[in-house]
């Protein structure tokens, strides 16, 4: 029945394929398990009241969602790379970044380790 289909990939071979993509953490089962609490907290920031509660008392908010030390430190550093490493998913992290008015260009520049202007210039050049 499935003779003409592509061979079924094992979990290991899928993970290998993801890990070979340069500069990229694919949000797979490993990240899902590691980051659930962090992502659940960030998902709550769809609500303005929750965003304000976080701003008022970041530690208490993280405590309520039972974040681990790695996640709390990454949040304190306002560091996206560290948050991804701690299991964060970019779509939910974007809601957290929105609390501080951080744009996707600022987030990109931070992860690339370049200035925002240099990042924007890089995007413009991609159209050449």
């Amino acid at each position, binding site marked *: 029945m499935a003779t003409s*289909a*592509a061979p079924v*990939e094992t979990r290991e071979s*899928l993970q290998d*394929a*993801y890990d*070979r*993509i*340069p*500069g*990229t*953490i*694919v*949000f*797979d*089962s490993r990240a*899902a398990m590691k980051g*659930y609490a962090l*992502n*659940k907290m*960030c*998902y709550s*920031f*769809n*609500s*303005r009241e929750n*965003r304000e509660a976080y701003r008022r008392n970041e530690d208490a908010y993280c405590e309520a969602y039972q974040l681990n030390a790695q996640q709390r430190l990454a949040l304190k550093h306002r560091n*996206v*790379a560290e948050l*991804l490493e701690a299991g964060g*998913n*970019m*779509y*939910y*992290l*974007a*809601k957290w*970044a*929105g*609390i501080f008015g951080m744009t*996707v*260009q600022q*987030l*990109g520049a931070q*992860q*690339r*380790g370049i200035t925002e202007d240099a*990042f924007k210039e*890089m*995007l*413009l050049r*991609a*159209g050449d």
Partner: protein
Amino acid sequence: MARIIGGIATSHIPAIGKAIAQGTQQQPYWKPFFDGYNPVHSWLEKEQPDVVVVIYNDHGLNFFLDKMPTFAVGAATEYSNADEGWGLPVSLPFTGYPEMSWHLIESLIQEEFDLTTCQEMLVDHAFVVPMTLLWPDRRPIRTIPIAINTVQFPLPTPARCFKLGKAIGRAIESFGKEHRVVIIGSGGMSHQLDGERAGFINKTFDITCLDQIINDTAALSQMSVAELVLLAGVQGVELLNWLVMRGAMTGSVSEKHRNYHVPISNTAAAVMILENGTALASSGKSRV
């Protein structure tokens, strides 16, 4: 019988919604992008669709990781937008079409697509931005949202998405009421928000995609999800939505318009009209 008149692929970058809200469409940064929609407005004016099926991906408004459907079909009388957390104005609700939604659901499950049905469903910018780009005057049109998981890997394969599109096409054209249906494939093109590769754009791949979505769907469908991430960027996997839309074209497909522009925010933006010819669908029977 309902007839699919065509498909429209369009980017849905949140910044587009902000530009519309702020009225900056004619500023130099935005003009080359928004001008690409003038031919789309003319085409829609000429074709007068009355139902739109929107193939999109939810970015954490309606669905969270607690329950993440691979494929979800809306069956609500109305679809609301809501606060997504980073300041995009909340849109007015959109009208649903439950009777046709349930027809699609019944037909798709008969064809072994075991999807999730949603009688309540918030729609995020990936639904709202294309609707606003296509109908800036908010013309009343009935909508059916179909959400594809692009958040939690494993994602559905490109081949599976193309097959889902084919089944959607058959389902639409077997609906027993007269309608003119347009299908939106929301998202794209290449972009990546996360990792050291943030800001990745692949113009060569995008241009190839724009050609292949018309005339070489086999090449796109054969890709693995990992290949797609490598070539299009993590968020560029929204090409899956385009493949569903393309799969739903039941007839001979011709390209009526395209506009490709880099960058909008961190993304390569594009819009394309695919007209669905009657050649293969003229019998009025579903081709299973």
